């Protein structure tokens, strides 16, 4: 029973990170119909920037803020310079461009920061809380993860629901031409959307790095998990992405906790889950429509 609780708890915490990453993918998909396969590499780049600052003696929080800001700038530049020319074109072209960006950024990280494993700090402890006389798999760091993801989501909801910029962004995402005719600067909104998504992606990259080792390809698994989570939720729905992230976190935690040598199977399990979802419910777990053509 205690094992079950611990596995569930760590699954939920991991799931929060997947949810954030999936949310970033969904934000971009909704506005430009592009899956940003470079998102993991972009997030990794900001994590390395943060680590460089921490190594130079800055505090974790300064590094975090600089990383998120550089994520914002990176996202904006990527959309404006690289994505804009292929927006609205054949979908294969956009896929290939984001993949190229993925490879290029990952290689650039290795050139600038090196390929070695480097340990990434966490601002809070990683010892589990004690309930009675047992230690549970909930640590101050996991509370930090849950808290920061929840705050980020609340801020995004507030932005989209209650601000004029948020409304303009949604209008641009759902009706590009109409929004332009109504005077909305759609190009700027798309740039802003990519920038915000990159901030959320960057946050998840820093959260998953906390207390672990990072190397240029450390986000490769997360891009897969984020994609699977987003597809679980239907790829179009922010709420779906969050639920999908949590479900995937739980599922992978059970695989790695209960199967013998299960940790080696986590990536395979994600593949299997994705295949099953795409075959059985291609519109995501919550979709009413079955066909997925776009």
């Amino acid at each position: 029973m205690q094992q079950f609780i611990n596995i569930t708890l760590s699954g939920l915490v991991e799931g929060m990170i997947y949810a954030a990453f999936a949310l970033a993918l969904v934000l971009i998909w909704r506005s430009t119909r592009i899956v940003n396969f470079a998102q993991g590499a972009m997030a990794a780049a900001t994590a390395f920037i943060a680590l460089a600052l921490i190594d130079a003696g800055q505090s974790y929080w300064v590094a975090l803020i600089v990383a998120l800001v550089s994520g914002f700038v990176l996202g904006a530049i990527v959309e404006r310079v690289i994505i804009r020319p292929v927006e609205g074109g054949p979908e294969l072209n956009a896929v290939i461009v984001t993949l190229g960006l993925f490879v290029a950024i990952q290689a650039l990280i290795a050139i600038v920061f090196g390929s070695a494993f480097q340990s990434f700090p966490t601002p809070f402890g990683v010892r589990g809380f004690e309930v009675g006389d047992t230690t549970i798999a909930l640590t101050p760091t996991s509370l930090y993860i849950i808290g920061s993801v929840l705050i980020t989501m609340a801020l995004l909801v507030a932005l989209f629901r209650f601000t004029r910029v948020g409304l303009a962004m949604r209008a641009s995402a759902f009706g590009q031409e109409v929004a332009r005719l109504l005077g909305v600067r759609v190009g700027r909104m798309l740039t802003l959307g990519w920038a915000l998504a990159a901030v959320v992606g960057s946050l998840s990259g820093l959260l998953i790095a906390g207390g672990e080792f990072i190397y240029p390809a450390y986000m490769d698994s997360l891009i897969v998990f984020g994609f699977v989570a987003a597809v679980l939720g239907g790829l179009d729905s922010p709420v779906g992405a969050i639920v999908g992230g949590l479900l995937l976190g739980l599922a992978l935690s059970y695989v790695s906790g209960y199967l013998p040598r299960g940790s080696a199977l986590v990536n395979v399990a994600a593949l299997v889950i994705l295949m099953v979802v795409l075959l059985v419910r291609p519109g995501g777990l919550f979709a009413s429509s079955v066909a997925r053509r776009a």
Partner: protein
Amino acid sequence: MSAPNTPVSAAGAATEEAPLTATAAANVPSTQATESGRSFLPASTLLRHLVTVLLAIVGSVILLEITDPFTNSQLAQLSYYAIAAGGLTVLTGLNGQISLGHGALMAVGAYTTALFLQADEPVALPLILLVSVLTATVVGALVGVAAARLHGPYLAGATLALAVGLPGLAIYFHDTLGGEQGLRVRAPQPPDLFKEFIGWVSGNSATGTKWLAYVGAICLILTYFLLANLVRSRIGRTWRAVRDQEVAAELAGINLGAWRVLAFTVSAAAAGLAGGVLALVIRLAAPSGFTLVLSLSLLTAIVLGGLGSLLGALLGSALLVFLPPFVTDLGADLGLDNTEAAQLAPFVYGVVLIVAMIFAPAGFVGTVRLRWLTYRAKQRAAAARSSSGG
């Protein structure tokens, strides 16, 4: 917002001067096939391909005999990249499906070859490679069934999961597949007949490296011969129809799913063979050899060459082999250390993918071909005008 409902909707761009589509080059062969009269090669497609095969064999022997052992091993490397890229370019260029999972399918072939060569008395090499092809074909068919219903970003994501997930099995089945360390491959010795042949042709010493380079070349020529015929056949035309005219093809009674599965399976077979050759050439099958970067390198090769073009896939693969030493040296000259300089090649691949998609989606070979065809069409139109006017 536009809601594209065909994967590569504007793919009929072959006649336009500036093709928008990545697969525009793939349309060209169908145009070209109908006007073979001007070529110095025979008119029959099969005959023409046979002549090309003969030329390729002679060319390979000359190339492998006039170059040093290091270049021989580079050419062996070229052969497995080109085999995999050939399969991938048929899938992506002709059928419009993308795959980031071909690295994983190569792993299937490589591990199969490695396992069979571990036996005390291994069976004959051609048989081992054939089994590797079959294994990868089965896996490819399974993936293809799932992939047939997807396209664009969904397919890319699913095959990405394959590329990241499948090597994990090698770690899980540690005892059989060797875990992180992988399986060492005992490359078979060159047969006596081969030694005699080399002695007769050039008098060079028939080393193991040379033998594997020949094995690679034979596999490459065979694969491209089969693929080229397939592309020109009714099957190839149906693939193009499935890609360009999804709805029309469906209305014409073509089972889209089945044709997509077939394309994926054929492509996986090529990847399996490539994996087998890779295992022989680098004498190792390990998870580190089949990273995502491998799959993306293959993608770079076919994009650069022009999607759908076998010649393009070959040229793109040559770039994968000959570019890294070049840029690595360049990086070292600029003061990068070895591991940093080694990352310059993937960096270039990434930049090339982006730049190619933005400026020349038809790829290198495709762009040249389109220019040539446009030029020819203009000439012909001018000729027609002057003859009707005069």
